[in-house]
């Protein structure tokens, strides 16, 4: 087992345990943004967003660069990978809904066919 990789993943998942941080990460996946730009859609103060960014940065999911007085943030390779993991998990939840629905539909079929015969 690659121990260091597991540790990274733990930090990543801890960072992703918060829905605001996931939303920030999802926003950064579509392009660079400043704290001000990030704060806007979340109805949160800039210090609150900065706090979330700090968690994401120390987990290695988000990186920043300096551009004059600004510090635009972007998602890192690890951030993209973590987001993929997260979305794969959610996709699995969605798939399992529809897999369940397949079974429900199969059990509905019996009466539907009987009724359908008179067409």
């Amino acid at each position: 087992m690659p121990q260091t990789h597991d540790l990274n993943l733990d930090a990543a998942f801890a960072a992703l345990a918060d829905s605001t941080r996931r939303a920030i990460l999802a926003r950064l996946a579509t392009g660079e943004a400043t704290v001000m730009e990030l704060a806007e859609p979340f109805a949160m103060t800039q210090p609150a967003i900065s706090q979330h960014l700090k968690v994401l940065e120390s987990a290695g999911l988000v990186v920043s660069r300096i551009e004059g007085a600004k510090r635009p943030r972007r998602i890192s390779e690890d951030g993209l990978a973590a987001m993929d993991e997260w979305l794969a998990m959610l996709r699995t939840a969605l798939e399992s809904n529809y897999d369940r629905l397949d079974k429900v539909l199969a059990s509905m079929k019996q009466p539907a066919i009987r009724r359908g015969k008179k067409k």
Partner: protein
Amino acid sequence: MSKLTLLTEGETHIVVTRRFQAPPEAVYRAHTDPKIIPQWLLGPEGWTMPVCINEARPGGKIRYEWTNGQGRGFYLTGEYLELEPGRRTVHVERMHLPDATPDNHVETRFEKDGTGTLMTMRMTLPDAQTRAAMLATGMEHGMEASYVRLEGMS
């Protein structure tokens, strides 16, 4: 085998398609009958839907409440705008986490596809940020997406 497709369209849409081995009328019923919905619309393993209200008529109310049986839960409310029985529904919905998320406008089509059904669910969010936030929040009736990678990489 993955029969699910999930794509973003423009700035604010999410389009989900899925094929089913049952006629459109049956798939439509499974999406609108409050006795059937709690059997499948559950998200991750271990969650249940103890409250399911689905009034399938224009202006009819939707309310789904989920719980994980360990004190965690949330709910969704909505209203139907249009219905073509067996073929199409249009409704708005929002999650309560507990704060209400912005309205998601959802058009669902059930089309005959050979002996089965092609379901196409087209969601419209108020803006791109809301779409990103919704997908990242998770549990939008298990409706979350892999779009971030698709768009983020482009």
